Structure formats: structure tokens, C-alpha cells
């Protein structure tokens, strides 16, 4: 499933909404999640999962091609943890 298919499904279920509004709704959802993480916030969607930001410490890396050592600065990366309900559904434990 890609973004446009998700928009399509929501549009079909909501024939009273304009397609462009459905697009704005779907885009707002993903933009809010990314925006929250960019501020260092968490987004917890019970049953689906939680988005958070993890810190990666600075380290001495190595250029695999040249073998040269490089200093890699500390950085923050997005992280997703699957929610319990979805994890159980993936394994056929609920329906």
C-alpha cells in the first residue's frame, strides 16, 4: 500500500469529502508525526505503535572503501516500536 492508495480508500469511504481534503487529511497526519519527532516528542498510537527519537552516540567510524577513520558525531534517529495489538494481529492471535 502506498500513500495514494491510502488516500483512495479513505476517499471511497467518505464520498461526502473532496478528494483534495482527503489528501490534506492524510498528509497532515504524517506531517504531524514527523514534526513531533523533529521537536524531540514521541507519538503514541495505542494498538498501532509508537514513534520516538533515539540518540546515537558519537563514534569513530571507518570508511569501508578506504579504511580511513572518520569521526561520526552524535545524532538523533527516528524509531518505531510496534504496538501490542498489531503485533498480536500479525501473528494471528486476534481477529
Amino acid at each position, binding site marked *: 500500500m502506498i500513500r495514494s492508495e491510502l488516500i483512495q480508500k479513505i476517499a471511497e469511504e467518505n464520498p461526502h469529502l473532496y478528494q483534495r481534503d482527503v489528501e490534506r487529511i492524510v498528509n*497532515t497526519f504524517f506531517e504531524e*508525526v514527523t514534526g*513531533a519527532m*523533529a*521537536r*524531540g516528542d514521541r*507519538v503514541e498510537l495505542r494498538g498501532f505503535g509508537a514513534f520516538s527519537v533515539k540518540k546515537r552516540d558519537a563514534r569513530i567510524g571507518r570508511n569501508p572503501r578506504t579504511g580511513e577513520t572518520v569521526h561520526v558525531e552524535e545524532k*538523533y534517529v527516528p524509531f518505531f516500536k510496534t504496538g501490542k495489538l498489531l*503485533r498480536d494481529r500479525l501473528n494471528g492471535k486476534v481477529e
Partner: protein
Amino acid sequence: MGEKTLTRMDLSEAVFREVGLSRNESSQLVESMLEHMSDALVRGEQVKISSFGTFTVRDKSARVGRNPKTGEEVPIQPRRVLTFRPSHLMKDRVAAGNKS
């Protein structure tokens, strides 16, 4: 940097502000988006949202695990797990936004 936790309520509120729908309808729309994505994943499909990221279902085979407290061996059944790979855009924004 933040440390706040956003929930469905905050996302519905954002939808409510963006489009002129009722709060109730906004929260139903957020809910049905999550349902459609979950359903696709349960069917084994990948969910690929451009400039956001990709959710992929992976099959893990059975293995012998160990209770770290007691050292006891426990069989771990084959299972399906979900992984999320953030897009470059998301990685860049998260890295830039949290820079100390």
C-alpha cells in the same frame, strides 16, 4: 528539545484545524487511516508512505531463546515482526531538529 507525548487526540486535533470537519469526524478519519494501514500489514503487504517511511512485515524463523534471569532455554516460535524504515527526509528532519 521536546519530551511531550502526542496521541490520537493530538493528531485528530491537527486534522480538525487543517480541514473544516468536526472533531468527531476528524478523529474517525485518523482511526480509519490507522486501520487501513494495520489491515494491509496483517495481509502481509508493505506500507510505503513517500517522504515518511516504509513499514515492512518480516518473517522470523523459530529459534532457541534463553530466559536471561534463569538461564533456562525456551523455544521461540516462528513469528512475524514489523519493521519501520524512515525515509531520508524524516531522518534529516529528525537529525536537524534535535541537534544539540
